[in-house]
């Protein structure tokens, strides 16, 4: 795949990760507002999910165990 194609793919992946983060943040907000008793475990789960999206997609954490790639 040419560099332009790889860049377009990477940018698209970033947009989808952002959409996922926005959705999870909105869910997080409504869980906190509407699920008041017992919301904390759900919020913890959502925090971990959002952190993983950033670590995996934006920070490429798996690069530590793989060859240099983007």
């Amino acid at each position: 795949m040419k560099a332009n194609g790889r860049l377009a793919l990477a940018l698209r992946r970033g947009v989808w990760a952002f959409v996922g983060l926005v959705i999870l943040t909105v869910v997080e907000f409504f869980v906190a507002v509407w699920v008041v008793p017992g919301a904390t475990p759900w919020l913890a789960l959502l925090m971990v999910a959002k952190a993983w999206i950033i670590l995996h997609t934006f920070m490429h954490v798996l690069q530590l165990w793989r060859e240099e790639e983007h």
Partner: protein
Amino acid sequence: MAARPTPANGHVLARPWSRLQRNRLGLWLFLLSETFLFGALLSSRYYMLGVSRPEELNQPLGLAITFVLLLSSLSAYRAEMAAVYGDLARFRRNLLFTLLLGALFLVGVAREWQEAFHYFPPSTAYGTLFFTTTGVHAFHVLTGLIGLAFILYLNRDGRFAGDPERAWPVEGVIKYWHFVDVAWVFIYPTLYLVS
């Protein structure tokens, strides 16, 4: 005397790490150390106050600055990808946008502090946790912005663009920026949402 291990006599040699891999490991170890700092601040919130929170927290403002920081992570990622693939114009555009969003985030935090001083000053239990945690985080945002500004200036001639090895300075600073976002992913619900 035992033969020196080589691929020819059946021994598999471990491939030496490249400079880029060593740089990445070093940065991740640094970010791990920062995790302990934020971990201590967040766990002290739960230890001191459980899951109670004041009603006066400005929820719309907290949500708005969260979106600002998430958007800045997207633009920072786009800037990094642009640098790796040699698209300087896209790199500059996205990095400038990241700087703007980061500054906007700090303005939002300052506005939040203005209200917070009135409702839960630092002399209160929640106040001391709130100001310490958001203050330490805001300091990381500020240093991140300085780093991003440096990279924008230094890479104006494209010296850090074209391939992952050359783009390492960009990658390093932007990974730090993403870490600041990850920290907020935990700080925001801990301070604003749990109840």
